């Protein structure tokens, strides 16, 4: 087992080092915005940057989309794209940290961010009143100076020490866009979060923070999970059709992040750069603690869904085989429906629609969704295993005088187990890997932590490698248990003898 993990590690490392080389491409030089006509662009998933760019730069429809800024910068560095279209505060921070990239001098177009609310929400006007006041008394300008500045020590949030007599605001925010909304050593940080806290204080309301993928923000408003959302969200006509925006609190611009042609790689040794990168990924801000927390969440979901799914699957399988005709039809339809729904979609439906108006933690929804998902696969697997046991085995046991129930447990199930256990193992590993999507409903699992870290460090290598390794270990640990059971129930395993008997 150890060997397996080690060789996989080597393989991954080699792959990550070599990848950029394959992507190398001949260089073009860009002097004005129009030079980018026909270039390769990228932006973040779920933003409108692509449409805005196309309205300014001719022939700019060659776009690829990334989930995080860090991924986009990786792609830019490795010459997979020519320009990363992004909001200006993010670009400036990225350029400051990565000498290999820079902000292109001509902006694409001005842009503005706003808090978004459900249609017709009365909270919007309250926000606007406070925002106007903050704009006049200079609070807003002050906050911008702090969060866009280099002095990290000033970047702290208000403590919620006001009474909050007027209720609680449920606030969902993106978490991968430094310095607007991101995650620091002790939790969420960023300009918009600080601003939201100060507005809540003015309104004498408590505020409850929830991290959420940008792509899930509008859904959480519409399902009633959130009262307000933000995440450097541009105010656009299209979004206004589904949500209401407060007045803009930040005048930004859409800019291009491009490769810095004058950058010369420093001759820092490989070992040193690995060391520095390791430091950034694990040590700074005690990030390893985040990893441990995420790991626990992933293990919790996998273990609960694994065990729950085994039981649910057995129940479904029995109903499917022994139930009355309407029950069988219902179960079959249920199984087919769930098997043909991508698990991401099922998870979002469960969280935003089925439990949309129920106050239940996202973690429980994730456990439930994966239990059902695994249960459905396990049901089919059990069924396949039971089918492999010849009907003659059942008849022989019945003819000896076993009851149908005894026949099932003594004769059929043990033989079926030898067939379904190996398949269950595969189903289980697939399920563990799929838990990596729970970030969509704001559960902070291992993958989400890895995203958070790599969005801060702009380093993909360690977070991804460690995440991959941890998944490998979790999956292997749990399948080892199944392996042992499999060997235990193999009738030909071990010494041939009759237990509890003096042999002749």
């Amino acid at each position, binding site marked *: 087992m150890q060997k397996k993990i080690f060789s996989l590690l080597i393989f991954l490392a080699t792959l990550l080092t070599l990848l950029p080389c394959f992507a190398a491409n001949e260089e073009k030089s860009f002097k004005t915005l129009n030079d980018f006509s026909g270039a390769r662009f990228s932006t973040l998933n779920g933003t409108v940057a692509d449409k805005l760019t196309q309205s300014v730069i001719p022939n700019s429809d060659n776009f690829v989309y990334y989930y995080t800024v860090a991924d986009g910068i990786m792609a830019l560095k490795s010459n997979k794209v020519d320009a990363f279209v992004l909001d200006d505060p993010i670009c400036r921070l990225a350029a400051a940290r990565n000498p290999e990239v820079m902000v292109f001098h001509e902006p694409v177009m001005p842009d503005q961010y706003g808090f978004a609310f459900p249609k017709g929400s009365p909270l919007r006007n309250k926000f606007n009143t406070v925002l106007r006041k903050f704009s006049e008394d200079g609070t807003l300008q002050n906050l911008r100076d702090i969060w866009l500045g280099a002095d990290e020590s000033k970047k702290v949030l208000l403590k919620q020490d006001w009474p909050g007599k007027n209720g609680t605001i449920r606030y969902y925010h993106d978490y991968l866009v430094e310095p607007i909304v991101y995650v620091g050593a002790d939790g969420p940080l960023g300009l918009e979060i600080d601003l939201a806290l100060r507005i809540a204080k003015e309104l004498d309301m408590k505020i409850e923070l929830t991290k959420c993928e940008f792509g899930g923000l509008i859904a959480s408003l519409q399902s009633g999970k959130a009262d307000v959302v933000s995440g450097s969200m541009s105010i656009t006509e299209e979004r206004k059709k589904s949500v209401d925006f407060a007045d803009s609190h930040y005048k930004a611009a859409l800019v291009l992040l491009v490769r810095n042609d004058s950058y010369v790689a420093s001759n820092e040794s490989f070992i040193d750069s690995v060391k520095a990168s390791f430091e950034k990924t694990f040590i700074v801000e005690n990030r390893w603690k985040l990893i441990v927390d995420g790991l626990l969440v992933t293990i919790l979901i996998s273990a609960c869904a694994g065990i729950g799914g085994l039981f649910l699957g057995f129940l479904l399988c029995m109903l499917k085989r022994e139930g009355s005709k309407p029950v069988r039809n219902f179960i079959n339809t249920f199984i087919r429906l769930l098997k043909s729904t991508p698990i991401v979609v099922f998870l979002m439906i469960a969280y935003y629609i089925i439990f949309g108006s129920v106050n239940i933690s996202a973690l429980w929804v994730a456990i439930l969704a994966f239990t059902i998902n695994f249960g459905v696969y396990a049901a089919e697997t059990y069924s396949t295993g039971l089918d492999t046991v*010849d009907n*003659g*085995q059942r*008849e*022989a*046991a*019945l*003819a*000896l*005088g*076993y*009851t149908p129930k*005894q026949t099932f447990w*003594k*004769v059929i199930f*043990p*033989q079926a187990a*030898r067939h379904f256990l190996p398949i269950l193992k595969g189903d289980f590993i697939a399920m563990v890997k799929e838990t990596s999507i729970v970030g969509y409903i704001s559960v902070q699992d291992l993958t989400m932590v890895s995203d958070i870290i790599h969005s801060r460090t702009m380093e993909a290598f360690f977070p991804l490698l460690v995440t991959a390794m941890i998944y490998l270990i979790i999956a292997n640990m749990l399948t080892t248990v199944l392996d042992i059971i499999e060997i235990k129930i193999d*009738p*030909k395993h071990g010494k*041939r*003898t*009759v*237990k*509890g*008997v*003096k*042999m*002749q």
Partner: protein
Amino acid sequence: MTKQALIKISHVCKAYPNVTPLKDVNTTIYKGDVISVIGPSGTGKSTLLRCINMMDPPTSGDIYINDEAITAPNCQLHLLRRKMGMVFQSFNLFNHKTVIENIMMAPMDLLGKSAQEAYDKGMELLRTVGLADKALNFPDELSGGQKQRVAIARTLAMEPEMILFDEPTSALDPTKVGEVLEVIRELAQKGMTMLIVTHEMNFAKDVSNRIFYMDQGEIYEDGTPEQIFEHPQRELTRHFIMRTKLMEEIITSKDFDFIAIRNNIDQFGKKYLLSPKSVHNMQVVFEELCVQTLLPYQGEAPNLQFRIEYSDKTNSIQIRIAYSGKAFELEEDMDMISYALLKNATTSIKTALTENGENEFILDIK
């Protein structure tokens, strides 16, 4: 001494959606009976066995085991089944258990025997079927004959009052049939009550005290081996025992297709490799007796059944001609020359009545 009835079967009918293999089965099986069930395939032999232990419940009718109705809805099926072992064509040993565990399992789980008791009894049974050295092998490590002997030992471990065998040797290599039949033969000698579906006719003749010939959805003929194999009373039994090949023509018009029937007789002869002389003789019987004699005798509305029966087993050919109306006296009313030809073509000519009361000639062909 009166015989003790073990199983009573009364008006049992079993219907599947497309076929009704058992229409009306009635019989009583006594303690100590060794009954071989024979008959063509698809005549419900397996179905009868499976009805008796309720593996397939009958559609209607009742079956009593020691006067207890196994067909009653409230019956403790699993308890009654313990009295009747069943041995299957496909052995059905439990693949996940060793040979000895296969035998020990049921007595321990169902009769509450200790492991040691079950083991000792199991080893004793294995010795009687000659497989004590295979105790720790798994079923897939045995030959077919060995598997079947273990299956019989497993059944015996439950100490049943009777055993149902469904073609116990049909799945075996011909060289392995003997070892299994030997075990069954020994059981018969010890007085075990058994119902054995089999195609091994010599074995059936030797070992049983009764034979059921199954056909037409019923126990068509029930008798001693002597009766069934030497003097079958009913027609289908006789055909089955003699392994008869049939050809039948029914003539209901004076203008029937004479050429076609002559041709059919030739084809029949070719198909079963009959000698040209026999074929010629069959043609003579058809020509002289049917066409020249009986047809004119029957007048305007003839009704004649002409049937050739060729027994594969005895290599003999019989022609049966049934006809409606009054009996015809060959010696008196037949044309002299025709009669002479007829005599020449046959070894014997008999008259009889068919099952539905028509006159019939039975001629053995030379």
